[in-house]
């Protein structure tokens, strides 16, 4: 499955992806509504973090969801079906990439904008691309993001 692949050296920290993501999905801008998020440390490091759609994990979110509301709905991506989510937060805890978030009573995550991710179109220096990723690429981003906490 194709996913949003991070390329750490290229991220400039402009956050266009974050802003465009929440504007596209929610009609407003709020970093806390971004499915993709940029982490920053000091002057030199930025890391884009978004769901890898199982390319580098065991889909822990799907496994732990007690109501099975996280699933592949249309063949593009693993989604949280908002209407069915009971807000237990299990998936947020389980995600090894910290790519699922809670807002109020619902969990939400990247659904690849139905196969045409908005964030990628806004990434001028191609620090995120939409392609088949290899686990190492996601793991590097994960390690870097964790090192920033």
């Amino acid at each position, binding site marked *: 499955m194709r996913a949003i692949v991070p390329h750490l050296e290229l991220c400039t920290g*402009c956050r266009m992806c974050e802003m465009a993501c929440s504007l596209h999905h929610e009609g407003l*801008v709020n970093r806390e509504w971004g499915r993709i998020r940029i982490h920053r440390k000091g002057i030199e490091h930025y890391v884009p973090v978004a769901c890898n759609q199982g390319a580098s994990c065991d889909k822990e979110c799907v496994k732990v969801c007690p109501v099975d509301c996280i699933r592949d709905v249309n063949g593009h991506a693993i989604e949280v079906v908002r209407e069915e989510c009971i807000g237990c937060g299990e998936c947020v805890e389980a995600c090894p990439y910290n790519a699922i978030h809670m807002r109020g009573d619902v969990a939400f995550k990247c659904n690849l904008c139905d196969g045409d991710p908005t964030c990628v179109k806004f990434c001028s220096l191609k620090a995120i691309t939409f392609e088949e990723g290899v686990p190492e690429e996601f793991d590097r981003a994960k390690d870097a993001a964790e090192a920033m906490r």
Partner: protein
Amino acid sequence: MNGFAGRILKIDLTTGAVEKSPLPEAFIRTYLGGTGFAARFLYDNVPPNADALGPSNVLILAPGLLNGFPVPTGGKVLFCAKSPLTGTIAESVMGARLGSELKRAGYDLLLVSGVSGSPCYIYIDDEDVEIKDAGGLWGKDTRATAEDIRRTEGDAVVACIGIAGENLVRYANIDCEDRQSGRGGLGAVMGSKRLKAIAVKGTGNLRPHDADKLMDLCLRYTERMIESTAFNDDTKYGTGEFLEWMNSEKGTFPTRNWREGVFDDREKIDPYHWAPLYTKRNNACLACPKPCGRIFGIDEGKYAGLRIDGIEYELLYSLGGLCGMGDIEELARANELCDLHGLDGISAGAAVAFAMDLFQDGILTREDTGGLDLEFGDPEAELKLIEMIARREGLGDVLAEGVKRASERIGKGSEDYAVHVKGMEPPAYDVRGIKGMALAFMTSSRGACHLRSCAYALELTGKFWKFEGVDRFSTKGKGVEIKELEDMMTVYDVLGVCKFSRGFFLAEGFVDILRTVTGLEFSESEILGLGERINNLKHMFNLREGLTRDDFRLPKRLLTLPIPEGVSKGHVVTEEEMNKMLDDYFEARGWSKEGLPTEEKISGLDLV
């Protein structure tokens, strides 16, 4: 209203009072945001002839209207206050997250007045606004300060001053995530209030009027920027990309305190030479898809481990050419010192160059410099003097006042060496060979400045926006030209859009963007009218502070010393040319010969 947070936050550091009030409806249509709000609130809140470093000066933080939305390059925010350097309105724009964060916390504007009894910082977390103790932060550099506060406050965006601001260096700046509100001494205003930092965390939503259309517009402009011919060079070499051109093709790169207009050592400081060797990666301002910012890193030698954002064109001039210094690693170190201490690198470099020039002619001696040999091109002397300025030690204490005041104190004819307008040291354009830009230096509301008008681009290429066939050596038509450019560029500072992308939007492009973000209908001419209103208001502030026509003069060096060599050889701005251009400008503005707006002008602009 959509696009706005709807409230103003006022903090009085003397009493500790915090006040939240609604943004006056009437101000929205007439001033919109950014520099518009800042100018209006400065005019209304700072009493005439207030001490710029006293309690009645008001430090204003004003996000651009588009801050927080993914409008490409629309992430600019500005600080504003009465300037301790020029006595005029000072505003300085930077591309930091501070603006969008303040809006998301629920405020379109922050006003800080008074003076704190002891060092403090302001912490804003949505509704929670606190004045906290900064005793442990006083004396720390800008990076350490921000890191310390983030350790306490988590993921806050931090703007702060270094020791230069604490020591009231008149051109101290404000730093936020390695972006700076550089010009006019706003860091000294913070220092005078004993305000070390402002930390903001906001979690609110920013709602546009029409999200779908805004999305389309943002994507279209982003794609246009990515596909533009300048994209490659802008992102690879940054703002210094035209340094060689400014030297060899135009002969207008101010060198050795404006003794020359071409720098013989320019190859060493040209980013085409150093960027491939030192650039680590791109570093964007908020919302910028074509970042000119890049991380410069040194991995070996005495400066191993150095990391700065830059080196910008302006500092390649001020810390490089102007001081006759062509060693790029030493220049990077000088840049780093300015960033860490919180000094405006343009004015700091200019002050050092001024002192070197005086030393060369024997007006300053080793006795005055504390034994320092202030030779042009000597990096050791330059670095030492920057340090002394930030700490206000010895000669540094004099230079910390800016070249105008320093020359008044030094005397002995040193006034002839002090290059400034209204007390502010100019940026990197030798205006003796760019006449329209000379006028722009003269008319800028904050002193010699390239960004109130951005006239250099039109003047040097002959073509921009509605202007064509402009001759940089001629004074013809420059009054109207500078007036129109200033009005348009002011709109960029209202919206918080980068002037490096001015060619993409122009006034025309903002009509749709404004509608989709706010729902407000503005015609192109109304948008430009907004710029005119704000510029008149800034001018009225300056007049109230006692400015007269004399304050619009160029310094003696630019009027009497022709550029000695290169393409612009022999050019100078004569007294006659200066006066003609100024007359034309005042006329274009609808002001009297003395620069006073008529009653009709003021009421016609809704400024009463």
